[in-house]
């Protein structure tokens, strides 16, 4: 089969056409459904001896029609596709709120030890004591780092941790007999979308809390909204504008006085680990994204892990499973019947063990001293970027230092007619992944930059200098750098509207797209 999108390429790169559509090392790659065949396979398996099947009448009637590729073809398919991706390993990935830090390969090696990777969640507990010890130790580190009393290890990611935390709070409220009255969760507008979604998923009603002009929460505004109908507040701290909620202790007291709980979104824990403890600040529950703060790889979208630390008030309501140290070693409490009053179970098995190993390797490598240093470097790096850009870009909450990420908005771009999106796409041409844009929603055209502690000064210098170059270019009206950017990526700007208008969500023989001309 020949695959040569000749026509479209002519449009794409008028300066230098190729016959293949490839450009040197940038090689186009078709879909497996176009290159593979159902009768081919890249896995050799011996044919079993004839036997009498026990499938009753339920044998599959229609084959799935999935194409198979030999191993060399498979290799090439995915290697070529991978080369169309940006990665931390290739450059700074300054997505605010995402904490794209270095992913040590030691962690990968450790997670692949057969003693961790090839053990079954339900094999006898006497045969997995090392695994249980690791979980217990990781849990201890999380509790010490956060100053909390318990931790639910099973949540699969941050949002799942939020859901878990909200349900734990609901269970605690129910236990107090207030299940029917406390139905409201206060969530600032700057919150990540998962927060309101998680609260709603647990059957709560979400109410916004506005921020002060300085980007942080006003205790008075919180007090105003508290009442016997409020179950909890959900704050992010440092918040999504990169600012530490300086009145957090007061807010926590107000919340507790009102009989509500304080859930903290711990996505930004990287900024403060070893510097302060959420437990000391009055937090009742907080998830920790191991895939942010503790370096487990994002993998193009997951998997992660979102353990939830809990205060002593909430600990009794934690879901199963949890660990108990008994005479014959560590034992998992797995069934709700063994933990009366507990929430129940929120997912199968015991949590993201593969991520636990990686996160624990990261913690051990840093130690208490290294983790604090990492937090300091993360904050320093953000402020260094801020210092390098603040004269050219606009800050929604005034000229003040930030924590681990710095928030700009597109105010400064207004005179140019360009948007945050245009600016971001021009960064791609320069070899940089853009910052987070349009989040948090409280800034107009937010541009949220989180360099993390993994960037060297040289890397930040080049990043800042380039953003300055681009900003100056924008200001002097050099539109060609922005219009329709990126120009030098594997694809030029993609038509998202078209994708949503007539969704093509899987390959079908008929769905071949014909070039727009």
């Amino acid at each position: 089969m020949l695959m040569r999108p000749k026509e479209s390429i002519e449009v794409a790169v008028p300066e230098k056409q190729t016959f293949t559509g490839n450009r040197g090392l940038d090689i186009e790659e078709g879909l497996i459904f176009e290159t593979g065949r159902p009768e081919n396979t890249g896995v050799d398996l011996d044919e079993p001896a004839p036997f009498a099947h026990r499938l009753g009448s339920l044998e599959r009637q229609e084959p799935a029609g999935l194409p198979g590729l030999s191993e060399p073809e498979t290799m090439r398919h995915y290697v070529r596709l991978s080369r169309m991706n940006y990665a931390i390993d290739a450059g700074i990935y300054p997505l605010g709120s995402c904490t794209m830090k270095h992913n040590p390969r030691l962690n990968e090696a450790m997670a692949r030890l057969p003693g961790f990777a090839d053990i079954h969640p339900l094999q006898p507990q006497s045969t997995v004591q090392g695994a249980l010890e690791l979980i217990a130790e990781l849990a201890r580190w999380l509790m010490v780092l956060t100053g909390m009393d318990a931790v639910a290890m099973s949540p699969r990611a941050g949002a799942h941790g939020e859901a878990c935390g909200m349900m734990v709070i609901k269970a605690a409220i129910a236990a107090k007999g207030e299940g029917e009255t406390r139905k409201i969760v206060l969530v600032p507008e700057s919150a990540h979308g998962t927060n309101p979604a998680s609260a709603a998923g647990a059957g709560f009603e979400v109410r916004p809390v506005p921020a002060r002009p300085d980007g942080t929460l006003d205790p008075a505004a919180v007090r105003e909204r508290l009442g016997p109908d409020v179950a909890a507040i959900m704050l992010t701290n440092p918040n999504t504008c990169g600012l530490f909620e300086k009145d957090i202790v007061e807010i926590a007291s107000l919340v507790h006085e009102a009989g509500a709980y304080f859930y903290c979104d711990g996505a930004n824990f990287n900024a403060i680990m070893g510097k302060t403890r959420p437990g000391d600040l009055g937090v009742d529950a907080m998830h920790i994204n191991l895939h942010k703060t503790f370096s487990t790889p994002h993998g193009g979208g997951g998997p992660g892990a979102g353990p939830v630390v809990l205060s002593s008030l909430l600990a009794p309501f934690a879901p199963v499973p949890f660990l108990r140290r008994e005479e014959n070693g560590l034992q998992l409490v797995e069934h709700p019947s063994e933990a009366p009053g507990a929430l129940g179970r929120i997912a199968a098995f015991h949590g993201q063990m593969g991520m636990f190993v990686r996160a624990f390797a990261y913690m051990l490598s840093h130690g208490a001293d290294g983790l604090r240093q990492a937090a300091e470097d993360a904050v320093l790096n953000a402020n260094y970027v801020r210092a390098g850009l603040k004269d050219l870009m606009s800050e929604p909450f005034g000229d003040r230092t930030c924590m681990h990420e710095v928030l700009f908005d597109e105010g400064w771009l207004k005179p140019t007619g360009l948007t945050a999106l245009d600016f971001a796409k021009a960064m791609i041409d320069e070899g940089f992944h853009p910052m987070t844009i349009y989040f948090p929603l409280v800034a107009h055209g937010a541009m949220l930059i989180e360099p993390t502690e993994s960037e060297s000064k040289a890397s930040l210098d080049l990043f800042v200098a380039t953003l300055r170059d681009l900003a100056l270019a924008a200001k002097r009206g050099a539109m060609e750098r922005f219009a329709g950017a990126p120009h030098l990526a594997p694809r030029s700007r993609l038509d998202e509207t078209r994708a949503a208008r007539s969704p093509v969500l899987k390959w079908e023989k008929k769905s071949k797209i014909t070039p727009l001309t």
Partner: protein
Amino acid sequence: MRYLPLNAEDRAEMLARAGVASIDTLFADIPKAKRLDHDLDLPMRKTEMDVERLLSGLAAKNVAAGSVPFFAGAGAYKHHVPASVDHLIQRSEFLTSYTPYQPEIAQGTLQTIFEFQTQVAALTALDVANASMYDGSTATVEAVAMARRITGRSKAILSGGLHPHYAEAVRTVSTMAGEETEVLAPDVFAAEDFCSLIDADTSCVVVQNPDFFGNLRDLSAIAATCKTKGALLVGVFTEVVSLGLIQPPGAMGADIVVGEGQSIGNRLNFGGPYVGLFATKTKYLRQIPGRLCGQTVDASGRRGFVLTLSTREQHIRRDKATSNICTNSGLASLAFSIHMTLLGDAGLRRLATINHAHAVDLADRLTAVPGVQVLNKTFFNEFTLRIAGDAAQAIERMAEMGVLGGVPVSRLLPGRGLDDLILAASTEINTDADREAFADALQGALSC
């Protein structure tokens, strides 16, 4: 510290350039009383060598599946994953990239998601699949929530053949959300009858196939009843390899199909990370939870892929979103997709056939052990044994003999009078000798 590029000189220079006196100035917003002025009571930094030693020591305390005859299943299966899969998912560009929010420099991830969606839809025989959920159990929770949204009804009926952890997760989350769930009694023989239970408040019926006890179930009749009663049928599987050999839920009339994809491309990992598969009919597209990747074109007319229909999702719709999921199982779904690409139809069917053949052989061998009875009429690669004795004890004894001989049903369903049942699975990894060792060990365990 090896992961931190800044040295003391850099830090000083950068502080100066940032115009702050000391690093602590930057943390001034933390209330003074709450600032830590000492290292926490945790060990200090360790060399790579020491971390390796410590973790290898912990790993060595566990009995790995590859080191002994191994027959545990019950929702997590040990299969052979080709070495090329693990190599590919470790490509920096897959491993260390984020969710593809900037599609022009994430076509690699996006195209693999598009291919994954297509594979999942084909396997389940449904129209459309999403970019993955955390795992099979949370996918089931989401499927039930989706059915409630679609039908506007509350009650979810969970088959007694549904994996108990899945059922508990649905029950817990539903209860917290104020929704009703009816969990049927454990159904060892696939004998339950739902049809009478489905009423006007029933949003969905959730049935697993092969069920928790290994029985194969024909969903067609339930599907028909659901249709009549305006409820949806949610088909669940925990062993995706089965779809190479048995009728997919979509072909039997399921409206939503969810399941665990761990068996393909992924290792046991003591329970996670795994990958949840989620598929449904086109008409329910806008109710799907999680990410979807769609095809489009770039400014030059070249085919490309983007995340799409995100108005369903939390980052746009917030408390009205179809789900709160954000991070999903990206890399595990990639492993799934790569392994499936290697297999193709022919490979998958062969793999499934071997699994079935091994399980049939195991069933025959175990049936020959005195005091052991195989309860299943039909099964794929796992079935239920009734033994003359306590299952948990027998399994513990077998472990001492160096055989991991399945899962006691009572571990998941304690106090239900099922203490004499063992779930035993045999995949392509087991040899004849392994199965013989199992039979011998079971015989040994029962006679002591």
